């Protein structure tokens, strides 16, 4: 009977876990919707900023602004955007592995600037050089927080302290697929103009106020902010999608386990009943004899 009690306890415990994973899945789904909304709202700002920069930067030379200047990388940085929380499948481990490979393949080895406790903990245990850790970004991961990081990075690049900065983050391809990527942030590769701007007035030039080069100087730092925030939003959405999928799988696994344990429980219960019957029948037979 102690065996039956043990199985019942285990079923209860798995059911409890399943309740938690189901709730986490629902919370992740709600957060994902909100993250996608924020990304969608930001898109019009980011797209307009890109098209304006493409207009101003067309024909600009790398010498026109320090953030465009290409240098032989003697010292480089990677901004790693991971999450603060776990239970999201391979979200953080895939990113950490990609960054490790990237760092080992690059010459000289880049230093790391980290957002998110998961990568912080991972790289602190390893030999990678950590340049800086932004620990408060997820307290309020808005545009202002991303802008602060972008300003820091742009200042480091413009002063010549570092010669290249990359972003490493998870991109959301679909609900079920998040892929870690490394993308160049600085020097800026200005977006290329795709649409035909020749409106009904024909190919007349823009009036720039102030001068084109001064406008470029104001636009480029803002563009870095846009790129950092875009990566942060992408990573947040990917994290919630990954957690949703992981919790869905955990809930299904718990269900499988409950079914399996119920089967064992029923079998054991049936066995116990059969034994009791055998005892009774055996006893009755003995009396008859």
């Amino acid at each position, binding site marked *: 009977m102690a065996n039956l009690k043990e199985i019942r306890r285990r079923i209860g415990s798995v059911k409890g876990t399943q309740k938690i994973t189901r709730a986490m899945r629902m919370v992740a789904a709600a957060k994902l919707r909100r993250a996608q909304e924020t990304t969608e709202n930001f898109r019009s700002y980011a797209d307009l900023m890109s098209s304006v920069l493409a207009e101003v930067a067309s024909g600009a030379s790398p010498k026109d602004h320090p953030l465009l200047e290409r240098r032989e990388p003697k010292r480089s940085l990677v901004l790693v955007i991971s999450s603060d929380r776990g239970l999201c499948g391979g979200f953080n481990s895939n990113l950490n592995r990609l960054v490790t490979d990237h760092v080992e393949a690059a010459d000289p080895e880049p230093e790391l600037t980290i957002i998110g406790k998961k990568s912080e903990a991972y790289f602190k245990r390893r030999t990678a050089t950590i340049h800086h850790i932004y620990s408060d970004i997820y307290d309020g991961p808005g545009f202002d927080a991303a802008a602060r990081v972008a300003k820091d990075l742009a200042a480091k690049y413009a002063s010549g302290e570092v010669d290249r900065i990359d972003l490493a983050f998870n991109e959301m391809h679909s609900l079920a697929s998040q892929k870690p990527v490394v993308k160049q942030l600085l020097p800026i590769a200005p977006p290329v103009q795709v649409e035909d701007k020749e409106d009904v*007035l024909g190919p007349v030039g823009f009036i720039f106020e102030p001068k084109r080069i001064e406008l470029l100087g104001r636009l480029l730092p803002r563009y870095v902010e846009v790129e950092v925030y875009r990566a942060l939003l992408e990573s947040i959405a990917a994290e919630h999608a990954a957690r949703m999928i992981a919790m869905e799988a955990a809930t299904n696994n718990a269900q499988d386990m409950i079914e399996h344990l119920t089967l064992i429980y029923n079998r054991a219960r049936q066995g116990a009943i059969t034994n009791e019957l055998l005892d009774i029948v055996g006893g009755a037979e003995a009396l008859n004899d």
Partner: protein
Amino acid sequence: MGEILRLRVVTPDGPSLDEEVTAVTACSEQRGEFCVLPEHRPILAALGAGRLVATRPDGGSDEFVTDSGFFEGGPSHVNVITQRCVRVSDIDLSEVTEEIEEIEKELSGLEFGDAARGELDVNLGWARARRDAVDGGKAGEDIT
């Protein structure tokens, strides 16, 4: 379409305005106001924190305050890219005055060259622009 401009104001939090207007007056970085009408030559300008006035097709106008940003105009559209935008009628003067006092107090406690000044200066400009837009449009008068 020759009489109408599509005015869009976008911020990082999302589009805050998308309207058809007949004229747009904005405040340039040098605090000078300029007006763009339909069929205007393409223009790209840096904006300072200040008033943005949209003239509606019925002759009335809507007033906003935008933070610093960029103004991109063409013959039939105007796009304003800015960090923040608020309708003048939604501004609470006493709240903004309090905000200005707080920022000024904070600034007075900082030394010149302190890194924190940059963000505070931006916020002060934004708060002053909102105050000026409400109490008689001083932001506009400054340049005349």
